[in-house]
């Protein structure tokens, strides 16, 4: 049986590399045109090419979002752009517009087309339509339940991709222009202002909000594997390196443990705790097992918390001096309990004993983000570039 794919977002080339190193099987990225995150960093053609080469050397894949709702003017140049991206070595396009689907399939049959969730595909009959159009994979609407996913897979035999983690839309994807009307930013061309997270006034009553909690299906990965879902997708092309390392690394472990038959309840709790530490909203399973209800939403406006767990990004480790060189990300100090984790899934917990600035002066605190620091650590695990340091508990 083919192992399920773990699909990660990547907002730029560095995040592409890091998330693949942390266990993603494939990444989806946005180009400088035609993607639904117009305000993300996004990839130039040269960066797409480099990203594809990096991924392919690891036996992994890169998909490009081409999923805006095209206006007349957007059609100008799109064919040349598609051709250029194909030349970069892209493995699949993620598309919502059926004209673009047919264009790609007729001109570049070697490249896969994945139907974007922007089409809000919710039933097997619509999937049958797109299968006949040559679509290789369908990213189902987030409104579809586990049982409905199974029926779609059983009846169509097509590859199905499911969102497992990250932010949710309140409305059906593609069926919302609140952003257009409230802010003039085009929701379906990459400008969504997330108006569903605004607070609206109601005469004589408490404010009306309809923001959704985030999606987290960590506990149901086994069930998704069992019904033969092809790909598990994490949302968030604008998320940080640390977020990707943590979330992708954790789902990698969940998937691998499930296949190995070692995914215990105790392990699952540890994984969920790890995911919770990088979350900035509460989470829910939304439509997976039931109709979404009041417990899946917020009613008090934006509820977003930031945390300062992410302490440092490792540059290198010197085995002789037993010093970890890293870029500081958040304040910490000698005496704090921290954890260092690596792309290979190794992790070591320890109390910060000695801390040095970039000139090797011993210091008590690291308080300058982006500055280089060193800390002492005696360990046998293989610490490589892009290992991360996170806070477990502060002595403060």
């Amino acid at each position, binding site marked *: 049986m083919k192992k399920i794919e773990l699909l990660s977002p990547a907002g730029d080339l560095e995040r592409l590399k890091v998330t693949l190193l942390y266990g993603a099987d494939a990444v989806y990225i946005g180009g400088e045109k035609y993607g639904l995150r117009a305000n993300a960093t996004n990839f130039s053609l040269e960066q797409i090419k480099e990203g594809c080469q990096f991924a392919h050397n690891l036996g992994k894949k890169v998909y490009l979002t081409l999923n805006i709702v095209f206006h007349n003017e957007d059609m100008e140049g799109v064919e040349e752009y598609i051709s250029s991206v194909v030349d970069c070595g892209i493995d699949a396009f993620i598309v919502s517009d059926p004209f673009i689907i047919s264009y790609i399939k007729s001109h570049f049959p070697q490249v896969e087309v994945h139907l974007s969730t922007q089409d809000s595909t919710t*039933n097997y009959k619509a999937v049958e339509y797109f299968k006949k159009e040559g679509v290789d994979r369908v990213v189902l609407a987030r409104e579809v339940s586990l049982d409905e996913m199974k029926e779609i897979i059983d009846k169509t035999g097509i590859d199905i991709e499911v969102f497992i983690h990250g932010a949710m839309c309140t409305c059906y994807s593609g069926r919302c222009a609140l952003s*257009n009307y409230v802010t003039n930013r085009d929701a379906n061309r990459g400008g969504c202002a997330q108006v569903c997270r605004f607070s609206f006034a109601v005469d004589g009553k408490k404010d009306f909000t309809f923001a959704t909690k985030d999606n987290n299906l960590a506990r149901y990965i086994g069930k998704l594997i069992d019904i033969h879902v092809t790909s598990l997708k994490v949302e968030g092309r604008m998320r940080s390196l640390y977020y990707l390392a943590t979330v992708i690394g954790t789902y990698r472990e969940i998937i691998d443990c499930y296949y190995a038959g070692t995914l215990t309840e105790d392990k699952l709790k540890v994984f969920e705790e790890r995911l919770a530490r990088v979350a900035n909203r509460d989470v829910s399973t939304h439509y997976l097992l039931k*109709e979404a209800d009041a417990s899946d939403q917020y009613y008090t406006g934006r509820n977003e918390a930031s945390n300062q767990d992410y302490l440092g990004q490792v540059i290198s480790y010197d085995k002789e001096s037993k010093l970890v060189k890293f870029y500081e990300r958040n304040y910490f100090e000698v005496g704090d309990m921290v954890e260092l984790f690596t792309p290979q899934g190794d992790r070591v917990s320890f109390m910060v004993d000695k801390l040095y600035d970039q000139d090797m002066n011993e210091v008590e605190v690291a308080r300058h983000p982006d500055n280089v620091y060193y800390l002492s650590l005696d360990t046998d695990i293989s610490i490589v570039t892009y290992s991360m340091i996170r806070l477990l508990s502060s002595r403060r």
Partner: protein
Amino acid sequence: MKVLVEVASKNIENYVDKCDALLLGIHKFSVMNMVSFTVDEIKDIVLKYPQLEIFVKMDKNLFNEEIDEVRKCLTELNDIPIRGVFFYDLALLELKHELSLSFDLVWSQTHMVTNYRTCDYYYQKGVSYALLSKEITLDEIVEISRKSSVQTIVEVVSLPSVGFSRRKLVHNYYEYYQEQGTSSLTVLEKVTNKKYLVKEEEAGTGFLLDEVLNGTSVISSLYQAGVDYVLFREEGIPAFLELISDTKNYISLGCRDTSYVEKYKKLGDSTGFFFKKTIYRVKK
């Protein structure tokens, strides 16, 4: 150019001679209707008013368990000489092919009908009409009308639909605050100071801008561009029957009577996106 009306009343007699075509929501499979009709009711209307073109609105997002019933419904509709079915879900197009249905389809994906090439894609798939999105400009509409083979429909007067969720948002709101309430709310967006109607129904919750889209002033441009239908949605529009009757006369006289445009300035000055282009990049 014809006048197409989405009705808010079952008294069809009121609309006869005042428009050319009706859009009727159908039970279970259409959303955000003031009224909806059974297949039998639609059949009666088609037979009783042969002078009216009848379109049926089936614009719900469909789920697996509904497909068999949709198939049955489409088969029944196929025995009635309706003009076409407005669809959102691609299952409808697949079923039209599978069942070899004879009526036409209208591509009606709310905010996604935005360019001439995709209109032509659907035309080649046997879809004869497209209801263009309200979020594109008049220039874009004219270009689509001129370059596409599909028959174009443009919504000109309505309370614009701006979003639809599967969630029971109003019910959930009252449940959370443990209050009694109805299935709808009027809410105020605080920055723009504009109101929205939030309406919950069996299929989910819809949002309407509580401000009349007044496209009466662009009808002459649409006429000249060869647009095939102008759509008027009745919900929330004052003196609606007089409006559509006047519009039918205005069009029949070649859209030259400037007093029509003057008269309907009273509907307000919101022209939606006819003259306003959306943006989507907010930083370099």
